């Protein structure tokens, strides 16, 4: 049995990914995808989130946190590989609290010990940027062609500039809260907690999933998922690259929903077969095959390093 440790801050698309994965593996609508070998003993949670996915509605999350786990008996039709994959669908709040309160549950501790693959979820619209006050001031000055916040400073004498800079005492309107830390720092923090468990397993495969990939503006197909991580989460990218003894990384852009669940979703729900809604981009990805990150993470794509 393989356990995939799924990491992601709140609302980063973990549950929707699992719902679409369950549908694709079970429906066999996508020719190259992994298939469901047999139904698990308890598929209540997986069926519940899959129903929401079919109806294009957010997951109702009526099931207790402790029961939010998917066990999938998967096999690769082109190969001998077969295995039971446990996909614990932990709430994003678990990860938020790890970063903020510096605690993790015993269940998570056990998962960290047994997991040999990671899926890391990021949502492009939920990214907290490391934007500074100075950068915003600069943007404003540029936007207003040097008029806003610029004039007063230029009218100061040389000595006034030096003394004025000294007297400027800033006061923050908001209080510090660890949730204000940039997303990329929080994710590095979460991965660092796992480092003691990774030493004996290294390198561990980590598939980074950029959710809502259809919402990322693209020109001529760019950016690629890898380029997006480098540009938007450079601190995470550096951490993963520089710890290559611990991690082997692939980045995937995924829209498990295929579009927004807000507003009129009738067109989205009408797509037939339903797997065609799924968008995935990344190494070796066939159209709609949301199982590819799992296949790679499990090491079932042997041609890859």
């Amino acid at each position, binding site marked *: 049995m393989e356990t995939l440790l799924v990491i992601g801050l709140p609302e980063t698309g973990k549950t929707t990914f699992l719902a679409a994965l369950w549908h694709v593996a079970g429906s066999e609508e996508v020719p190259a995808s992994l298939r469901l070998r047999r139904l698990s003993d308890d598929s209540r949670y997986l069926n519940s989130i899959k129903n929401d996915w079919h109806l294009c509605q957010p997951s109702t999350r009526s099931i207790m946190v402790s029961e939010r786990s998917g066990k999938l008996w998967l096999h690769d039709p082109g190969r001998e590989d077969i295995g039971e994959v446990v996909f614990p669908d932990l709430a994003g709040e678990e990860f938020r609290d*790890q970063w903020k309160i*510096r*605690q*993790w*549950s*015993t*269940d998570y*501790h056990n998962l960290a010990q047994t997991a040999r693959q990671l899926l890391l979820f990021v949502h492009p619209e939920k990214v*907290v940027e*490391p*934007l*500074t*006050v*100075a*950068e*915003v*001031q*600069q943007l404003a*000055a540029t936007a207003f062609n040097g008029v806003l*916040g*610029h004039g007063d*400073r230029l009218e100061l004498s*040389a*000595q006034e*500039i*030096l*003394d004025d*800079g*000294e007297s*400027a*005492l*800033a*006061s*923050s*309107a*908001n209080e*510090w809260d*660890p949730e*204000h*830390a*940039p997303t*990329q*720092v929080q994710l*590095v*923090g979460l991965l*660092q*907690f796992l*480092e003691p468990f990774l030493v004996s397993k290294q390198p561990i495969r980590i598939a980074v999933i950029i959710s809502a990939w259809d919402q990322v503006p693209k020109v001529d197909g760019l950016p690629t998922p890898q380029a997006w991580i480098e540009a938007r989460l*450079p*601190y995470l990218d*550096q*951490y993963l*690259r*520089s*710890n*290559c003894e611990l991690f082997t990384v692939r980045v995937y852009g995924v829209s498990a929903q295929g579009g927004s669940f807000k507003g009129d979703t009738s067109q989205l729900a009408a797509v037939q077969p339903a797997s065609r809604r799924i968008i995935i981009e990344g190494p070796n990805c066939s159209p709609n095959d949301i199982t590819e990150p799992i296949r790679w993470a499990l090491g079932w794509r042997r041609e890859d390093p």
Partner: protein
Amino acid sequence: MESSESLADESPQIAQPSQLPAGQPLSATQASEVLREIHAPIVMLAGAAKAGKTTLIASIHDAFQRGPFAGYLASGSHTLMGFEERCFDSRYRSGAKEPATIRTRALEGSLYYHLKVREKDLQSPARQILFLDMSGEHYERMTDSESEARRLAPLVHRADHFVYLVNGARLASLKFRSHTVSNASMLMRRLFESGLLDSSARVDVLLTKWDLVQLAGPEIVREALSVADSLFPEKERARVARFRITPVAARPHFLSSLTPGYGLQELLRSWVEDLPKKLLIHSRTHSDERSGRLFDRFALLV
């Protein structure tokens, strides 16, 4: 009493959550544990209150938020939360109108910030570095008292790099210049006379807030450099293994053309890569480094 024990025995076992590392700046004891596992140079930041010590440390962490810095990739840190808390008041999410950094208080004692970096080509293992930050009040007391200087002596001797931050804007300001020069000169004198800085010491003097000096114009820049040069006489520079003066702007004003972390890239590389102080051969052959006048390096630095 008996009944309560009995009740406790019968209640279901509730698994206790595991505590994770706090991510805050390390105490001296915690820093020692890090040093037992790996070699990490210690960079001790000294200077008066508001000289920019904590801002400098925070700005190095912040620079990596935008991409590789000084040729290094960010490879992790034991003090991520501490870095972030220090960066917060300069971030847009703080709601501040002007960037700032929370002050390090004297009661906090010595705080160590940890950084792990790796060359971009990944050809060599990651390197680690510790920054030692203390409230400016300690250095003010050191200027006043020989016994306070002696109290800090072990920290200064253990540091691989002694970095003295002088507020460059105050050095350039007619209003604050004499006050700044006098205090800086007294502190350096105390450091030498108390034997804290000796022939094994590697000293970096950083002229902070250089963005304001630069905004004030080229005349002021020249004047500030000249004042800084004369502040540290040749005979003092010759008493240590290395002496450098570098203008820096950790977090430049938005009107400045200087980039964030200005002046810090070469310094960071040097702090990470230089041989540990204990392995440093007390050679006197580096006269070029010690006698390099600031004016000679001006074209490269500004």
